[in-house]
């Protein structure tokens, strides 16, 4: 397949499909979870065919999420290892938010913000999964004590709100930094985007092309 010149490959088809299925499941989980979390959002159960079906489906969405996220985790974890540049980048978060890129260190495939989103998603999904097991009354009710279920309910609610927050950051960053979404839709980004936001990665990719 011929690629437009001056663009760089960022995500394979497999990674993109994996990402969007994962994203869809996460949205379904958030909607069905919020429906059971706050009475004023109970109307959201209508999206899933009523309260009973929402209750039945939500934990299965959770199982689906663990599976799809495992795919993303094993694809991307090695690009998300924290290094010293990430700490420098994070210390200049004011410059990041003001788009003063000239004050920031050169960034590789992922910047510190993206790495934080990755690790927060990883840990929160694990916490949500384990705490969710204690709440799965239909399948696992008899395996947990009431005390464990109460702790599970609080942890699950707090982690769920946190992950929705992380999700908002993820969405907003992709929306704010123009040129980002094409990485996940077309699989490619422009050279200019890479130069501006991931210069070290651009240099690495350029060196590869040269060889």
């Amino acid at each position: 397949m011929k690629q437009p010149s001056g663009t760089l490959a960022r995500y394979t088809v497999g990674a993109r499909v994996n990402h969007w299925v994962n994203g869809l499941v996460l949205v379904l989980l958030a909607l069905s979870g919020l429906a059971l979390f706050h009475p004023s959002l109970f109307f959201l159960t209508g999206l899933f065919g009523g309260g009973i079906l929402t209750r039945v489906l939500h934990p299965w969405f959770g199982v689906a999420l663990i599976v799809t996220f495992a795919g993303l985790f094993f694809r991307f974890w090695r690009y998300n290892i924290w290094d010293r540049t990430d700490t420098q980048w994070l210390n200049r978060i004011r410059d990041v938010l003001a788009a003063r890129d000239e004050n920031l260190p050169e960034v590789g495939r992922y910047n510190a913000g993206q790495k934080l989103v990755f690790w927060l998603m990883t840990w929160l999904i694990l916490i949500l999964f384990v705490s969710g097991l204690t709440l799965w009354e239909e399948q696992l009710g008899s395996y947990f004590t009431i005390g464990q279920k109460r702790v599970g309910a609080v942890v699950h609610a707090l982690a769920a709100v946190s992950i929705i927050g992380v999700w908002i950051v993820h969405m907003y960053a992709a929306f704010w930094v123009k040129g980002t979404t094409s990485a996940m839709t077309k699989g490619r980004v422009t050279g200019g985007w890479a130069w501006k936001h991931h210069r070290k990665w651009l240099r690495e990719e350029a060196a590869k092309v040269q060889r």
Partner: protein
Amino acid sequence: MSVLQHALDLKQSSATSGMAPAGEAVAVAKLIDISRCIGCKACQSACLEWNERREEVGVNTGYYENPHDLTENTWTLMRYAEVEQDNGDLEWLIRKDGCMHCADPGCLKACPAPGAIVQYTNGLVDFISENCIGCGYCIKGCPFDIPRLSQADQKVYKCTLCSDRVAVGQGPACAKACPTHAIMFGTKAEMTDWAGQRIEDLKERGYQNAGLYDPPGVGGTHVMYVLKHADQPEIYSNLPKDPQISPLVDLWKGVTKPFALAGIGLMALLGIVHYVRTGPNEVAPEDEEQARRTLENPKS
């Protein structure tokens, strides 16, 4: 029983706000006088009978409880405890377990389904099956470990205090069946008075710690016990000494809900403010030019 006429006006309903204030109704109560109970299980049978429930034939584990715990069908269960007192006396303490119909019901507080758990103005707490979604949150909310999830239809069941009988001026089936009048039913004031007399009698008989179990931690209950040893309710098959809605449930169903939604809303708002102040983060033509040069000559 004309005082019970307003039995089915709603006072509280799960996951529902902005309910019209309920009219006043006379609070009712069931009084279980443990000192008069002979453990015959007539109440247990009457409960199954009236509510058209059947229990599978169980197995004998060498004890009197049958079944061994409350189930989705057994809404009331006789629990038998052999307790050796300090003076060497062996006491056989029999307690009729079941929903206590708390004035501040933890089940109702935990329930996410509108109208699945209601409290009538007379104090009864009832599960409305057609609104129940089977999530089991009530099980976590209850300080007495009462609601049971049915494996047959995935809905939760417990004692209704025979709300259907009370609504038409009858007492609950268990009270009707009790041969020793250990189970009484009437207004909460009458039952408290009656309990007072029984407690006086018991004290005269030497039970210095006799008392009424109407725990204030859950706002009082509409099922009360007369206990010979009210100072140590735990000896009656783990009747909780100071039951209250778990602080975890309060946290989960209290501040967490509004703060979480406000937090999510705030995050979204910050995004909008940031975008309006900073504008889109766009790639300039010079960036593309730099990139082109780098791709052509990586060493530069």
